[in-house]
């Protein structure tokens, strides 16, 4: 039996908060707390954390379970294993953005070049889409826009044509980037929504598409031939994915090939 008068340890305070303390010790802890306001404050803070976590996530268990989690359906699916593989790919793909949140917890070290690059692109997007009169430096009507930006960035750029998405090229501007000059092309959609495509040298290996969305912006990222691209726009996962795919194909002058894992396919699979 525990001595009623022994000092209360921090471990015991946790056990107490989590309701695992044996009844015969509970009274001792409560007496202790009455005489140790700092400990009482900590206990109160931990309880408040528990309440906040339950308030934030508790209701998820009451949501209707989506059909893809129906176990009869999962059992029947002969392609269960490939579905797992696909899910893993898609998780990696979509979680890229989310990984930022998590990875910051896991590695508070200096940001890698890709992070820096994406950060610059998003800062430019945020800054310039809000400009009413001067969102761009050189308009699309001026023929030297693309040659000029290409020369400064040091690669042959193309301003993608995106009428299929209702997007009109407004023009572009030159920006300082983490690895040298960066080009920013700006597009405007039918309801005034703006997209930017940021392109600059990024000497890292080619990457798959990555995707990130918040309540204000969505962005797709990729690296091809040591040029990094960041497409940013309104928070619409499907739309940004389709536009990114179209840009990728135009940049690479490729026709959409069947049998290749495209952003579209990844995204439509997610939705199923």
């Amino acid at each position, binding site marked *: 039996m525990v001595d009623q008068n022994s000092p209360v340890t921090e*471990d015991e305070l946790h056990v107490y908060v989590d309701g695992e303390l044996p009844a015969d010790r509970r009274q001792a802890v409560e007496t202790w707390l009455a005489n140790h306001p700092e400990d009482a404050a900590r206990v109160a803070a931990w309880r408040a954390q528990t309440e906040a976590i339950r308030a934030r996530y508790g209701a998820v268990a009451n949501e209707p379970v989506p059909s893809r*989690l129906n176990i009869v359906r999962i059992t029947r699916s002969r392609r269960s294993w490939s579905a797992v593989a696909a899910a893993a790919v898609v998780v990696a793909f979509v979680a*890229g*953005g989310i990984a930022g949140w*998590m990875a*910051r917890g896991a590695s508070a070290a200096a940001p890698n070049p890709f992070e820096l690059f994406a950060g610059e692109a998003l800062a430019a997007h945020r800054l310039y889409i809000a400009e009413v009169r001067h969102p761009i430096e050189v308009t699309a009507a001026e023929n030297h826009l693309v040659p000029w930006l290409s020369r400064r960035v040091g690669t042959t750029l193309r301003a993608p044509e995106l009428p299929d998405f209702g997007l009109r090229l407004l023009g572009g501007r030159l920006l300082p980037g983490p690895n040298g000059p960066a080009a920013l092309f700006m597009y405007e959609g039918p309801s005034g929504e703006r997209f930017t495509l940021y392109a600059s040298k990024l000497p890292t290996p080619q990457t798959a598409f990555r995707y990130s969305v918040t309540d*204000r912006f969505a962005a797709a990222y990729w690296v091809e031939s040591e040029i990094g691209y960041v497409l940013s726009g309104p928070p619409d996962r499907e739309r940004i994915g389709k536009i990114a795919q179209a840009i990728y194909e135009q940049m690479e002058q490729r026709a959409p090939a069947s049998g290749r894992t495209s952003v579209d396919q990844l995204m439509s699979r997610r939705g199923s």
Partner: protein
Amino acid sequence: MTFRHDIEAAIPALRRYARALTRDAETADDLVQDTLVRALRSEHLFHGGDVRSWLYTILTNLNRNRLRSLARRPTLTPIEDDDAPDAAGPEAGGRDIERALALLVDEQRAALLLVVLEGLTYREVAEVQGVPIGTVMSRLARARVQIKAYLDGGRPALRRIK
């Protein structure tokens, strides 16, 4: 078919845990789906015990693998709305706790959520995480210290070692 019935009954709680663990609905359901597929495939490996704890174990491991594979890839700066600090209001509290959880090391976050959200005992969490109870308790303690520091306003000064 009690095994399948038990699995099915655990799905809402698994979704809740996964949502808090990943803080993203799609990713969370991907994890749950992956967990269910594995559990159903591994029925023959299940030798009694608590199905729910076993499912938590699978999901926790899958999430750890996921984070590890993400860590090997370039990570992105999240597109944060950093224009305005959180305003007061009911939404702000939810976002604060969400951000505080995001800053925790994965093992600490999992331990805390299993205890406070899923109601597992320390012993059950120790089994899920495959560590001694003392380790669970220190994870819990560190998680709480960090969340408190974040919510008290010491936002940048996380990852401090006691």
